[in-house]
């Protein structure tokens, strides 16, 4: 009896995540995939059909450029967030516990800010009338206040800010579990703290770093407000154009086709990163 019950439970337990995956991911994805082949009816919404017109419209130099730019800006944001976040998390993990907690709570609080608030806060901070340039003028570093937004840098800053708390929270467990004897040993062998950081700590956590890069990359790909608020039209990512089609043009088939293609390309890119990571691991 006990044996039978155990098998039943053993069978049900993995079924739960599988079910959740089907309900919350596969079914919505299936609906989107279906709609992406539907026929757009300008005077209504769409009609069931099976056609490639929506994908055909997407395959143009115009959308190709936008796709490449979207990937590029998210990759930049991911790299920047990790470059800043990794040393930050390392030093955070070295602090006494009592000092760590308020900092982590602060980071969690930043997570509660929506994209809208982050976007508007940065656009004010970088504005001509109320922004940091006024401070620089006051200090004497600039002649007159200037607007730093909208620009590519402003967009990148906003995306990094959005991804930074995730960077820290994902890397924190691995870094705090890092055996302190490793860097100590390196230092005893005569490595400078800088050198031991780059030759011992960073390689030890290569998987964590790659994982974090992918997370921030994928996360910032979905940002559709920051590019509108902090970027110029040439900085509008594919997410902005998908929103325009879905909400303002009521062209759901085209929006779905763009989203599917975007998803596939991102997945391919992430897969490629993991594959390359595995190869170097075996080579090493």
């Amino acid at each position, binding site marked *: 009896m006990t044996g039978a019950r155990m098998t039943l439970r053993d069978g049900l337990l993995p079924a739960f995540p599988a079910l959740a995956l089907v309900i919350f991911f596969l079914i919505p994805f299936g609906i989107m995939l279906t709609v992406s082949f539907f026929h757009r009816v300008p*005077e*209504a919404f769409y009609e069931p059909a099976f056609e490639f017109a929506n994908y055909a419209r997407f395959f143009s130099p*115009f959308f190709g450029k936008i796709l490449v730019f979207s990937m590029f800006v998210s990759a930049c944001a991911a790299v920047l967030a990790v470059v800043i976040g990794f040393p930050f998390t390392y030093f955070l993990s070295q602090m006494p516990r009592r000092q760590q907690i308020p900092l982590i709570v602060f980071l969690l609080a930043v997570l509660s800010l929506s994209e809208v608030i982050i976007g*508007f806060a940065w656009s004010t901070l970088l504005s001509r*009338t*109320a922004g940091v340039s006024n401070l620089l003028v006051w200090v004497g570093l600039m002649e007159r206040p200037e607007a730093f937004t909208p620009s590519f840098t402003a967009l990148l800053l906003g995306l990094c800010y959005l991804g930074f708390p995730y960077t820290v929270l994902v890397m924190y467990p691995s870094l705090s579990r890092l055996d302190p004897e490793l860097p100590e040993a390196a230092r005893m062998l005569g490595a400078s703290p800088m050198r031991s950081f780059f030759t011992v700590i960073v390689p030890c956590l290569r998987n964590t770093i790659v994982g974090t890069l992918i997370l921030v990359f994928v996360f910032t790909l979905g940002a559709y407000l920051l590019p509108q608020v902090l970027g110029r*039209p040439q900085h509008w990512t594919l997410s902005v154009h998908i929103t325009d089609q879905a909400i*303002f043009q009521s062209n759901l088939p085209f929006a779905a086709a763009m989203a599917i293609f975007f998803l596939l390309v991102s997945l391919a890119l992430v897969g490629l990163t993991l594959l390359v990571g595995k190869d170097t691991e075996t080579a090493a």
Partner: protein
Amino acid sequence: MSEHKNGRTRAPGKVSRRRFMTATAAAAGVAAVGLPAVHLRAADPLKVGTYGGYFKDSFDKHIYPDFTKATGIAVESIGEPTGEAWLVQLQTAARAGQAPADVSMMAQVTRIKGQNAKLWAPLDEAKLPNTKRLPEHFVHRYADGSICGVGAVSWYITLVSNTKTYPKAPTSWKELWNSANKDRLGLLALVSNSFLLEVTAATWFGGTKILDTEEGILKVMQKLAEVKPNVRLWYRDEGQFQQALESGEIPMGQYYHDVTGLAASKGQPVRSTFPAEGGVLDSGSWCVSKASKQIEQAQVFIDYMSQPSTQAVLSRKVGTAPTVPRKHLDLTAEEFAAVASDIPAIIPRYDMYEKRSDWLNQKWSELIAG
């Protein structure tokens, strides 16, 4: 204030829970008592749909009570979503012989789409004497001449500026092209709500006739592309631009005349100017679903709304431009200037958006973001 325009353009309307429950209770009551359906219909209020949010609230407060007092016809106010969604709902319901609203306020492009689908009931001109005063562009007709819609409310999009940055008011839309305004403008981001093609056509091509053909539209777009270096912000969210205009961060652009005037009256350093080429006059129109069983009452309502006195109330209380020409109105000069101007308006080419929506949208995206 952004709620004001959001209500006008995109706030999603919903049937409130309270109204839903009353309706359900009424239906249940009828079923239980077994009243004949005809009896119920006689007591049915006229269902009038306006954009949920600011418009619905204002109409509930300033218009419907007086209408009921004057005509004895009760109104059930329906908040409708803007854009295509309401048109689709009306169409689907009409196929089943139902009308979620008898009269609906429709944006012009959706009004034309409904007209093409013959969704609107033809109205009896003899029952609408007040529409005689309306200009032609506010009386919409089927090909056979019968009326299928009447202008309800209108509003202007004008050239706005920050009074501190520009002590002298600009006089022409040509200011948008002035290289002295590099990186200083805020313009609406979508082709279908900015009406910048009409503005460009009226300013540089002697009118919107050029927008008849695709070649003409592309020529206008080419001219419009010249403003790109001057544009700091292509906005979708009105609040974003208004705040930047008030602070002087983005000191010039296109915006709603009445909202700008309201901000100025509250002490903000902003002004709205009707350029020599005219402000853009956008509007909503009353249309009656062909499935409505209250066409008579709907006609009484539309005629009531087209009276000069009702239009004056709308201008004073809701801030819309009157559909009736100024000479019929008792608005003071100040009241009139707050909502409109005597300079002939630029009327949007709604037919263009209806006919070429996807093509236009694609070319526009390439123009702005390319």
